């Protein structure tokens, strides 16, 4: 039952997001669609929240998070924020919607995320190999996804705020 409700919610919100993506830039609201510093910060805060919820969910609900499609639900707000970014890209007809410092912050964050994710996954592999803690039944993917989102969002925000 819960699984069906979550699936319906996901499909409905996804359809609404797709509709907004196609329709909003054609309406008067298009003028209000722009990339601002608060949106940049909000994107990363949403990323941090989704990453934390996802990782906590993986350890609390274990396989249930996949069976009930909960991990997709948790990642949804972050997806929606990126839909907004895509709308702005579509409207501006350029992929450069953040300024060069923000781009630099994101590049540095990407590098830090690769290093951080590798270390965390190596640690989890070690735990798994030594039978201390197991991530079973495809749990590796959501774990990797939420770890990446969390690290990328945290480091982007840190590099951005460092100025």
């Amino acid at each position: 039952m819960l699984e069906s409700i979550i699936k319906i919610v996901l499909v409905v919100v996804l359809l609404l997001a797709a509709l907004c993506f196609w329709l909003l830039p054609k309406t008067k609201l298009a003028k209000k669609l722009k990339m601002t510093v608060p949106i940049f910060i909000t994107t990363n805060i949403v990323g941090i929240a989704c990453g934390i919820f996802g990782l906590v969910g993986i350890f609390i609900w274990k396989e249930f998070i996949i069976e009930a499609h909960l991990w997709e639900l948790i990642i949804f707000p972050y997806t929606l924020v990126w839909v907004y970014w895509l709308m702005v890209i579509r409207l501006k007809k350029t992929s450069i919607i953040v300024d060069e410092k923000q781009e630099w912050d994101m590049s540095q964050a990407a590098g830090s995320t690769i290093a951080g994710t590798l270390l965390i996954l190596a640690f989890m592999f070690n735990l798994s190999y030594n039978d201390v803690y197991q991530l079973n039944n495809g749990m590796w993917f959501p774990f990797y996804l939420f770890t990446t989102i969390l690290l990328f969002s945290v480091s982007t925000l840190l590099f951005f705020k460092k100025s």
Partner: protein
Amino acid sequence: MKLGNFIRRCRFDMGEMSQEQLAKRVDVTRQTILSVEKRKFVPSTLLALKIARVFDKKVDDIFYIIDEESQDKTYQFF
């Protein structure tokens, strides 16, 4: 080597132009101007040219290279 600049001084000369105003003129965020001013971020050639154009100066008049040995010009300026 670092990239020094006289942006603060130029803003002052332009009637205390705020970082926000400059940022709007060159189409970047205030944080970017702040980082450039504080030498934490090296701007692209395009941004350097845009900033110079706002102050009606040459890029060389606003940005300079700080060699390891040489003293920072900013301290001489103020």
